[in-house]
């Protein structure tokens, strides 16, 4: 007796869904995560990878099956069946992708919110202060935390073909970005000449650095180590060489680096002299 096609379809669908889930959970295509929002990003990536694998394998499987099963065998003359459409089927495959897309959209909105993307930027709270407008970027975790968690401000200047980091509180200027682990960092970025982009793959963050329009980027590094900072916007002949390093250090190591290099802070003056 033939196995009813409904059961075969069900089994294939289940295998496909489980296979997609396995692929999404077990194949890792991303570099290590080193900031608080990287694991959130990876969560989204796994969901998208799972859905994408199911769709891709399903569609390619169906295509290959059709090509083999319905190929014209030698000696066959006639046409296929004259099926011009099937309205319920067409409604079904309009509705299902619409629901999936809507789900993915709302889910990624939630992810983006958790990464701090929907938080109003700092200037919105300045209450009429005649400050320069900040143009987009990702803020730190939540609105009230920005002040409470003692975010470290760093000014980033991008130019052909280097990044410069300036710590306004200690008046340090550095070619490498030194940051303490587990403390929110707020980068205020400006470009001198053309558009650049600040990208740290291990932080899963990127923000264009635009001449004439300051942008802001907040993140909390979580894993100590040295990670590349990459310019991701074509900025001229040496674009490929425009790289730097972000050094994530333990808070103690970072403190000693900071104190060794700080100039302006009054309580550090004796220390600087002592070192000199």
């Amino acid at each position, binding site marked *: 007796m033939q196995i009813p096609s409904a059961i075969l379809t069900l089994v294939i669908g289940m295998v496909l869904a489980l296979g997609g889930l396995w692929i999404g959970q077990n194949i890792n295509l991303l570099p290590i995560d080193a900031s608080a929002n990287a694991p959130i990003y990876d969560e989204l990536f796994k969901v998208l990878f799972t859905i994408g694998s199911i769709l891709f394998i399903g569609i390619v499987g169906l295509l290959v099956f059709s*090509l083999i099963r319905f190929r014209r065998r030698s000696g066959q003359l*006639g046409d*296929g*069946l004259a099926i011009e459409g*099937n309205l319920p089927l067409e409604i079904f*495959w309009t509705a299902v992708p619409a629901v999936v897309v809507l789900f993915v959209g709302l889910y990624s909105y939630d*992810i983006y919110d958790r990464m701090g993307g929907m938080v109003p930027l700092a200037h919105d709270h300045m209450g009429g202060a005649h400050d320069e407008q900040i143009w987009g970027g990702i803020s730190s975790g939540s609105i009230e935390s920005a002040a409470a968690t003692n975010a470290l401000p760093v000014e980033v200047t991008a130019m052909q073909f280097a990044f410069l980091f300036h710590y306004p509180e200690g008046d340090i200027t550095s070619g490498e970005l030194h940051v303490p682990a587990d403390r929110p960092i707020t980068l205020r970025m400006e470009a001198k000449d053309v558009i650049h982009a600040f990208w740290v793959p291990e932080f*899963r963050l*990127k923000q264009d650095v635009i001449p004439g329009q300051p942008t802001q980027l907040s993140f909390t590094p979580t894993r100590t180590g040295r990670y590349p900072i990459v310019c991701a916007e074509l900025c001229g002949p040496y674009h490929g060489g425009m790289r730097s390093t972000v050094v994530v250090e333990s808070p103690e190591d970072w403190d000693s680096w900071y104190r060794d290099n700080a100039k302006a802070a009054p309580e550090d003056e004796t220390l600087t002299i002592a070192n000199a």
Partner: protein
Amino acid sequence: MTISLPPETSSPPRLQPSGWLRYFSFSVDHKVIGLQYLVCGFVFYLIGGALAGAIRTELTSPVSDFMARDVYNQVLTLHGTVMIFLWIVPVVNGAFGNYLIPFYVGARDMAFPRLNAVAFWLIPPAGLMLITSYFLTGAAQSGWTAYPPLSITTPATGQIIWILSVLLLGGSSIFGGINFIATILKLRRPGLKLMQLPMYCWAMLGTSILVVLSTPVLAGTLVLLSFDIVAHTGFFNPTLGGNVVVYQHLFWFYSHPAVYIMVLPAFGLVSEILPVHARKPLFGYVTMVYSIMAIVVLGLIVWAHHMFTSGTPPWMRLFFTIATAFIAVPTGIKFFNWLATLWGGRISLNSAMLFSCGFIVNFVLGGITGVALAQVPFDIHVHDTYFVVAHFHYIVFGGSVFVIFASIYHWYPKFTGRMLNEDLGRLHCALTFIGFNLCFGPQHWLGLNGMPRRVAEYDPQFTLINQISSVGALLMAISTLPFLWNVIHSALSGPVAGDNPWKALTPEWLTSSPPPVENWIGEAPLVEEPYGYGVPPDELDLTATSGRDLWSSGK
């Protein structure tokens, strides 16, 4: 009273050159213009391919050692510009549109034949100008996107020539678009209804609407950019109070629809090819038409997804995420319809069919990564990386270029009256498919792991994957050799095709191969069912079918 004509005027003097010379003339025959577009586009494809080869050669090592860094930026700018404006857009629109649309609407030519010839003859000088700028002054080096302030600060001559060339090509595209809209809406044979047109007409109607609405915006933007460069105005120059992000909005208002200008005609061509070789009607004609129009409308309101990392406010990011992701719905309908067209057919596994199926595989992958890229948090990590490079090559090469090849294998018998060699065709398809996936598949990983696009040098940890990708590019270059041999050899000595080798029903096959000037001797045929293939389930010829066919048809 009859006047006896002098014998020497019995063959009237021809206004148009005949023979091979007409392909180099200002011909107004839509078929000649179509082939002019096709061959001219293919020449530029070879040039663009050579540029791609130079890029992949540079990237076989992590240091910049094959060419100077500014030359590398010129090469990548030329590669993008040539492939988009001189190969894919002119060929999927101009070449096949001009050749096929008058047949499909039952007309003897396009609505404005002279405008049509003008539109084509803008292309060779524009292309020539673009390529020679490299040898004369150095080409533009700010990428095909020409973002200011980089495009304002790099050498001006190359950038201005680039702008002039793109303006000419945009003009050509607009002329073509107006012509297609007029032909499809106004030149239909009496009795032929809109909903009886072959699907490619709908695709070209939608595409032409996009061309006419969005290309002028690009033209205006580039004119402003050239003012900034030449006259030192400050539209996009931040040191003079200009705004660089405004340029990006204006640029992408054209250049995102440009993606649909490159793929919608390809969707239309596939919809013509699959039913013929699967011997089945096109599944879901009406939903196909509506999904094309939905793509046109949605395609116009998604441009800012190219700018998620440029300073855009959060609400804007959210809107463009949802709008972009929803394009997957009408696009998905089309793919499911094609799969349903194949299901239960009598599929000939020839080159046209295999290239079409390669297109489906590649485009589905490109579409899936596209939906992922539409999600702001996902995009923030991979924007401007090799992930994006892989994604859009899966769309424009894996999609449009595969369809161009499928279409050449499908319509070559009509163009020339001779058949192509199928074995060489299948070899071409296999090499292209393997080479393409080897070249661009690994680039997804490169982008996710930290390699930005448009770089001549990169982190040495990516060397191996880049070398694999370059091997794939080499394979793609080799794959054009059997194709070129096949096309040239078959044109001279291929087997004679006859009028209708595929037993197709659309009007271009209901005339001789190659067709006469003005397309038909006598009246144009009225084709009300362009996809009337197949046997109704209740009229299956029992002697010619197997039990499985009966079972699968539900009997």
